């Protein structure tokens, strides 16, 4: 991996009723888009636990794309609104953690909008490519090393305080 040129990796969570179908439609219509995205199907964007997104970043994703039904069109009435709220909260948190804003993205894509899947993936890829690798797994390793280094000092303090 290190010998090769870096390629961004994007994990996408698409809802079963709108965006997953739109991605199928993009396929049926042979719309080409970047191969860097890995689509995971959920029944509704409302099912997307913020932990899924954090997990994806921590396991090496450079970007996470959420795709759901347009407001008002949710198959489950209002799951996409719940997803939107969670997305807003998580976006603020990610920003505070130093993860750039565009790395998590939410798009409303209906089942008939294959082209929008193509656009969203390509557009996001371009932006994430500009940001460079997030590479949390490597950072974690470094931080672990630092923790190892400060450990003796830290345990001394803990003992003293305790």
């Amino acid at each position, binding site marked *: *991996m290190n010998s090769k040129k870096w390629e961004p*990796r994007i*994990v996408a969570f698409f809802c*079963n*009723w709108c965006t*997953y*179908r739109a*991605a*199928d439609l*993009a*396929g*049926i219509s*042979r*719309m*080409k*888009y*970047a*191969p*860097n995205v*890995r*689509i*995971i*199907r*959920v*029944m*509704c964007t*409302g*099912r*997307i*636990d*913020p*932990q*899924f997104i954090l*997990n*994806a970043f921590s*396991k*090496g*994703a450079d970007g996470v794309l959420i795709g759901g039904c347009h407001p*008002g*069109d949710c*198959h*489950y*009435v*209002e*799951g996409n609104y*719940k997803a939107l709220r*969670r997305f807003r909260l998580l976006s603020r948190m990610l920003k505070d953690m130093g993860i750039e804003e565009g790395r998590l993205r939410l798009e409303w894509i209906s089942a008939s909008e294959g082209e929008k899947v*193509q656009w969203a993936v390509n557009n996001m890829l371009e932006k994430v490519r500009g940001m460079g690798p997030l590479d949390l797994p490597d950072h974690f390793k470094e931080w672990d090393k630092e923790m190892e280094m400060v450990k003796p000092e830290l345990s001394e303090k803990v003992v003293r305080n305790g």
Partner: protein
Amino acid sequence: MDDLKEEIRIGVYVCHCGTNIAGIIDVKEVSRTAAGLPGVVISRDYKYMCSYPGQAIIQEDIKEYKLTRLIVAACSPLMHEETFRNAAAKGGLNPFSFQMVNIREHGAWVNDDKEAVTMKANDLIRAAVYRIVCHKPFQRTRVDIQPSVLVVGGGIAGIQAALTIANAGKKVFLVEREPTIGGHMAKFDKTFPTLDCAACILTPKMTSVKAHPNITLWAYSEVRKVEGFVGNYKVQVGRKPRYIHEDLCVGCLKCIDSCVYEKPQFPKEFDLGLSKRKPVYIPFPQAVPQIPVIDPETCNKIKFGKCKQLCMEACNERKAIDFDQKEKIEEIEVGAIIIATGFKIFDPKRLPCYGYGIYQNIYTSIEVERLLNASGPTGGKVVLQNGKKPETVGIIHCVGSRDVLNTNSWCSRVCCLYSLKLAHLLKEHTEAKIYNFYIDIRAPGKNMEEFYNRVSKEGIHFIRGRAASVTLDDSDENMSGVVIQAEDTLIGKTLKVPVDMVVLSVGMEPQPDAKEVGRMFSIPCAENSFFLEQHPKLAPVSTMTEGIFLAGCCQGPKDIPDTVAQAGAAASEALSLIDNGYKELEPYTAYIEEDECAGCKTCIPLCPYSAISLHEEKKKAIIQETLCRGCGVCVSACPSGSIKQKLFEDREIFCEINGVLERQ
């Protein structure tokens, strides 16, 4: 945790899909890579996995290699997930021990880079291998189905659907908001393209509805509340007070004759206000049910409490009249619901440029239908306000249709043809000169173009251009005529055409309360507020809510033949649902691990279907599986992680994420 003891033996199958997949993805390489993943005991590639021999390979392998899990990397799960679940079941596995990997629509078809897309396929299969280890076997839940259907709306769509179902021997409840069934069709004079009389073909059907032993007809009633789920809807229907008991009235109509108002003097709704009625009236002579209704707004007794009540006297010992009648709520249980709530006619007052309601002798198409009708306000005579026959008539098409800027974007589909019909009928009745102002003549469908050809040979004038305005004709000494201004786009000239009478071919709009009705039945409206079908081509009468079907113009503008056809389709969908006796629910429902639930109630308000409640004694949440549709909103909100969604458990999704991101 008995699944830990279970031996995981996975079979992975990579489909070539002819050259669809194999032409881009190195399927041999993908299959080899899969073979090296933990738990995989056999990995193969094959030309067409969905074919009979393809499925046979799977079934043999299940036996030979004692497989406990199955992965097929092929097309979209929306295409063949059920096929392979069934194949797994036939091979002796639980159908949910299967996971599908989409390497066609999401792989081979969207990428040209062979190396990159082969890597993508490897990643996706790895994710499935990691995830499938967590899969637990389960059975789909079955629910019993009530063998009865509610039809909402008694226009031609609702009538047709109700009769079809009733003829199959099932119980039908037909609910209509107006005092009579028949809908818009009952108001028409003739129907295109055959010109047969609307009443002649509709009223026999209306009578059969009333007479049918399997149909309960509730006219002048509205659905008030809907609860439950597919197969078991609990519905409350409010029967509005007619102030006349339906079961006591024999339809002699003596109450109308004897009313203290000797002459009708209130605008008659059925004739769009072109004629008058009394406070007690029936909408039209062939109304079904043949029972009068008393309008509380105009009846002296109800409004002022003072009246000689001659109607009571006329009704005599039948005692059908009851001024104290109140709305009565009926509760029913049905297996399926057909929504046939119809459309609203566009109100041309929204386009003041056409002078409707400002100048005399400007009518909407539906008003002209009434004028032409022998039982209409003029007894079938088309006359101007001054009592003379019109000598020139202008018909303006697309009023409230195909007008993105001002009104509605859609084509209402019927206006071209009913305008041609009205042109023909007006010519026949008045021998007037008739001008059609049109954008395009759209006459698709059986015998429609032929009808257009026929009418265009009858000496009717066609001017291609949207009419710009209707203004008063200054040159007319009586000041009763108007001038239609339009650009004839075929010759590129602006024309001013003086006419005696204008017909506005108004389009169809969704019912004004479509959104509320949609919310009551949990069916979404499309952008334009017509109800949204599940799939425009393959599920045109189904909705996103199981057991609720659409018929007629509530789904979008259409003519009578298409409405009747769609009503038949909705009826047969409803029948095929209720006739089976039971229904299998979606497998993705949520359930609660009781030991973990803290009873915090976070999940309860989140559920859009009110499927979650708190067990009062245990103080723990419970999910009624039959109400759960499997969105998983509660699962991701549960702070203790005690709600699980079948096939979308947290750990399954985490495994999938880890799988796609693991570095090779």
